[in-house]
């Protein structure tokens, strides 16, 4: 058929989102379309793609005009059958991103009850059979386009989104804007949301107020730092504000320890949260003589006496 005859857009059956065509174009250019797309007649007399939407886009990108397709209009007379054909063909051959899963679930809802979707389809999508999960996925489709793209590319985690859905709409937008701008990794996203929410609640401020505070904006707009540096600086600033006493105490201990010139191969550790009461000393050595030398050097190191009890360094500073 002529490619122009195929309806524009993904249509009612296909389930592709957030993809790139480079590799597929290269494959089609070199080997052609090996597996013909499935199509069916629609009410307007045109053709809907049942499966193979990306192959058709690749052909269009390669400036081809014709495509060999398989017409399933008679073999699969109902829309439900066509949707399932597309679904089963895809599910057997590739992984779906989370927006694609959401699209599939939404389309299945037109033909199946939530109970059936949970029991029969969600396990195939590697999702737990739980109506709460179904509702959550359907919510993803209401996100703005740039956010959906970020979800599809996994630059925003579902855990982050779940946490974000607990904020009001305006706050969600502000938080997402900063998460994307700072290019936070998945763990950083969780920390960022946790800190900002805790600070807002503790200090009776809105999310907007927390994120537009002068020092935070300065970090975000510092022309001398790159994105990872900005991300670290922003998180550290928030951490200091959320955990003022802990942060000060950690710094006090660290400054005491780093002032001591420990022999090479000797490292002093402490619990980062200052909960375990003891320090731990590690000595790396290559043989017994090496160990004795390290111990002798340690023994003669008067500065060791300045190591304070954890928390004492902080209390004495105050």
């Amino acid at each position, binding site marked *: 058929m002529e490619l122009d005859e195929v309806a524009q857009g993904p249509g009612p059956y296909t389930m592709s989102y957030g993809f790139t065509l480079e590799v597929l174009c290269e494959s089609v250019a070199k080997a052609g379309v090996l597996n013909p797309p499935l199509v069916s007649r629609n009410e307007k007399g045109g053709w809907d793609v049942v499966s193979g939407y990306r192959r058709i886009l690749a052909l269009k990108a390669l400036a081809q005009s014709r495509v060999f397709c398989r017409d399933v209009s008679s073999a699969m007379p109902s829309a439900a059958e066509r949707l399932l054909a597309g679904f089963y063909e895809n599910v057997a051959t590739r992984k779906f991103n989370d927006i694609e899963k959401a699209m599939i679930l939404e389309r299945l809802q037109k033909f199946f009850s939530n109970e059936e979707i949970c029991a029969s389809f969600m396990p195939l999508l590697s999702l737990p059979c739980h*109506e*709460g999960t179904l509702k959550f996925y359907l919510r993803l489709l209401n996100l703005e386009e740039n956010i959906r793209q970020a979800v599809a590319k996994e630059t925003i985690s579902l855990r982050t989104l779940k*946490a974000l859905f*607990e904020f009001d709409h305006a706050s969600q937008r502000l938080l997402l804007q900063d998460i994307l701008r700072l290019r936070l990794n998945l763990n950083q996203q969780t920390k960022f949301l946790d800190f900002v*929410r*805790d600070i807002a*609640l*503790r200090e009776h401020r809105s999310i907007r107020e927390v994120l537009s505070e002068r020092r935070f904006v300065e970090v975000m707009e510092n022309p001398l730092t790159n994105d990872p540096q900005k991300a670290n600086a922003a998180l550290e600033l928030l951490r200091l504000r*959320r*955990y*003022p*006493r*802990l942060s000060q*105490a950690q710094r006090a201990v660290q400054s005491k320890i780093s002032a001591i010139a420990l022999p090479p191969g000797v490292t002093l550790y402490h*619990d980062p*949260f*200052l*909960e*375990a*009461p003891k320090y731990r000393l590690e000595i790396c050595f290559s043989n017994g003589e090496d160990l004795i030398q390290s111990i002798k050097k340690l023994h003669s190191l008067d500065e060791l006496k300045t190591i304070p009890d954890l*928390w004492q360094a902080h*209390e004495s500073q105050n």
Partner: protein
Amino acid sequence: MNLKIKTAILERDAKAYPMAQRVLYRFQDSINIKEEDEPRLTALEEFQLDKETMRLLAFPGELLKPCPGTREYLCCGYQILHIGTNCPMDCSYCILQAYFNQPSLRVFVNLEHQLEAIGRRLQTSETKVFRIGTGEFTDSLALDPIVKWTEILPSFIARQRNALLEFKTKTTCVEGLLSSPFRDRIVVSWSLNSPAIASQEEHGAPSIRRRLEAARACQRAGYVLGFHFDPLIEHPSWKEGYARTLDLLDRFIDPRGVIWISLGCLRYMPFLKKVIRTRFPGSRILDGEFVPGLDGKMRYIKPVRKEMYAFMKAKLEQWGAGGIYLCMESSDVWQESLGWSPGSSAGLSEYLDERARRLFRIP
């Protein structure tokens, strides 16, 4: 206490137990009663605990278990008698909120039938003092008007020589105890907090004054009392708040009849934070500086815990209290806040056993 139970579910395995029939009889026609062939989980909305349903079931495992302490902190060697789970009150900090796969108020109606085996277990270690409590996974007395644990357990304890039983509650449901003839080796204890925390975070629980009025009634009736300030929560003017509770304690209770008072700062599994934020968006209990403890639970940074314990200890000793101990704390926190440490879990256990021996006739 005003119970809001609308439905009772009798599981198939529980039908044969007389305790189940007695509980259902006490409901009379006031609620909807269902029988269920197979226990099944109801599909509940996220974080719903279904406190309007009482489920009567036979617990398949051991009912008496040691309290799950951890190596990293000193544990008192308490034994938990598992009589049920969940409770009709709704405290924002409650650890039971984490158990969503076990919703409803669950009552184990095979309790009476297990008591004989439990008694045999107690007799195998006659030199050991078993400090047993029922208030770990439920409130010991909140459902007593319907379930009548106070008709079953004190007589059982009276037959044991080396065990005491602690009813731990936030309620005023002491009628069953007051009409019970047994007093020996029964401790009735209340969970206390500052009035602000009680009113803002302990939803559905009586005020501190009403709890202490109930405690006074029990003390006057000859019961030995205990108190648990757990969780202590750092909140604005916490010193004034806890001092107010201690003033009330002084007005209502004679400290000589108190066996022990435990102190424990708020701690929670990390997962619970999300639950609390969702179920109690106005709660302020998460405002403090929490760090992961050595047992994986979140707890206040050490200086906060030490300050709170030291403050409470000074006030309680002023009042004349003995038997003050810390729940799940490290030896250095004991030392620096209470001025001494039992050194180990065994040491703490011995300290509390000694308190028990002193107040009761335990060999």
